[in-house]
């Protein structure tokens, strides 16, 4: 059953010097129980994607297309409706940094907040609920820790708190934006293990640049390049038999494969070459690659790729 169905989603930012396209014509279907990873390098628009679904982009963003959640297009919903969706139906684990938690509120208050808005849970029940959440995420001495302020926690603990906040109302879909960036190797491994456990029977949209995180958590993976999806498929299959030259290049560039670099640089938003956007960096590009822009084609049962070689 399709939980979130995104079709033709494009985002442009209006700036002083005209509009800058960031996302182009994204189609993505997330079924209930899927854990979909969106992989891409910095600047490819993957964070904007998550924010556009939540309708949290700044006012100079122009979003077109549709994002149907439970039969309702979120992009058309009014603010009041969105407030009912955010946190309750779709929750977000933001990119971890020291500033994502409010420095003047205790973490207990901040976790309890979404419960207070979306449920009738109050007083003692609320307290118990928060403690249960903290315990389930491996935060020791929850009674004591919920009285503390964000600056008293380490990066790993803050990540757990962020996860607790997202899980509080038991949402249908969780959007996790780079949940492991900025963490040390050991802490990162712990958080990944934790996420694997708590996300076991949930629906997840994981946004990351880290292939390891994606392969550890996701059932399906979409690879983004310069604001469009270039390849989609079940994670295991996709990493074993990558079809798109960019995906192949990414995997070859990873440490365990020995750092074979992809030549060139990603195009800046709004400065994509004609034809296939990856063409200038592609090792197997032909003449027609520099003229015709490929579309996302189905190959095989469950896989899609945007490359002229598979036409």
């Amino acid at each position, binding site marked *: 059953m399709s939980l979130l169905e995104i079709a033709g989603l494009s985002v442009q930012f*209006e*700036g*002083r010097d005209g509009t800058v396209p960031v996302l182009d014509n994204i189609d993505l279907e997330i079924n209930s129980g899927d854990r979909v990873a969106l992989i891409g390098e910095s600047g490819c628009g993957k964070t904007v994607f998550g924010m556009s679904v939540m309708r949290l982009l700044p006012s*100079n963003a122009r979003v077109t297309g549709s994002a149907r959640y439970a039969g309702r297009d979120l992009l058309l919903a009014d603010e009041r409706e969105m407030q009912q969706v955010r946190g309750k139906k779709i929750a977000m684990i933001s990119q971890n940094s020291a500033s994502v938690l409010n420095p003047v509120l205790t973490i207990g208050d901040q976790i309890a907040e979404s419960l207070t808005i979306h449920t009738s849970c109050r007083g003692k029940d609320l307290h118990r609920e928060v403690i249960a959440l903290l315990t389930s995420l491996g935060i020791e001495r929850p009674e004591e820790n919920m009285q503390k302020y964000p600056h008293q926690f380490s990066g790993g603990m803050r990540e757990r708190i962020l996860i607790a906040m997202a899980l509080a109302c038991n949402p249908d879909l969780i959007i996790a934006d780079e949940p492991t960036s900025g963490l040390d190797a050991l802490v990162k491994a712990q958080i990944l293990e934790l996420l694997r456990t708590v996300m076991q029977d949930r629906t997840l949209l994981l946004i990351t640049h880290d292939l390891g995180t994606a392969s550890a958590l996701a059932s399906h993976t979409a690879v983004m390049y310069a604001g469009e999806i270039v390849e989609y498929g079940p994670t295991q299959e996709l990493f074993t038999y990558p079809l798109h030259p960019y995906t192949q290049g990414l995997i070859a560039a990873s440490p365990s494969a020995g750092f074979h670099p992809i030549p060139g640089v990603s195009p800046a938003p709004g400065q994509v070459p004609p034809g296939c956007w990856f063409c200038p960096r592609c090792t197997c590009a032909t003449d027609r690659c520099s003229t015709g822009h490929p579309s996302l084609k189905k190959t095989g049962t469950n896989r899609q790729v945007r490359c002229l070689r598979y036409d």
Partner: protein
Amino acid sequence: MTRNAFLWISVAILAVYFTVALLAPFIAPYGATEITGSPFQPPDSGHLFGTNDVGQDIFSQLVYGSRVTLIFGFCSALLSVSISTCAGIVLGYYGGNLDEVVCRILDILMPIPIFPLLIVLTTFFNPGIVQVSILMGVLGSIHGIRLIRAPALSLAETPFIEGARSIGATDLRIMSRHILPNLMPVVTAKFVSSSQHYLVMGVGLSFIGLWDTMTVDWGSMIQNAYSSGALSLGLWWWILPPGIAVVGISLALALAGYSLEESFNPRLEVNRI
């Protein structure tokens, strides 16, 4: 109107003021304290802005008065910002015990009210414009040093400064070629806002009688007119010109300051789109 337009208009206005102050003897028809007509003469071709209670030409007083006002405002701002910048950069760059000691001293000095202190000191020294400018500049830099030191400190900790040290650049080169240029936006904005602040303060101090009665400047002109009842006597030409002159330069500096601040503070800018 765009921010740049504001900035250029302000610069043009300031240029006019400076020209007038520089070329005062050529512009003013009479001397500042010269008695050139009968008292309370309304504006006419001989006395552009009329005359005051003793028959001095108000236009000439205005022109000569600009010198006192501008010297006080800009000199004290220049001094204060120079002290703040040099001290701030040195403290921020070297850090360590010197920084710690100076910062604690500044912490202690911070709540001492500058304005009454200035009044006490000027009463004690009974000084001229230059001395008060110096006093004002020194006292004002107590706040300024902190303002410059903070960004200088965070700059000094950025890798490109370490990088400059690692290629063997001398401390002087690092401070003058790397830290100072990167601080210029802050310093410029601070200079413009301080000039406005000090200029208005100078006129204000003169309005309440800081200088001796012989000094002609906009503040004492307003004070003279106001206390002699220019308002109730309907002698608008006596009190309006110096007031409008102050308002004009103060507005120009304020607009320039805000335009600068906004163009250097990307956060404010983003929110303006």
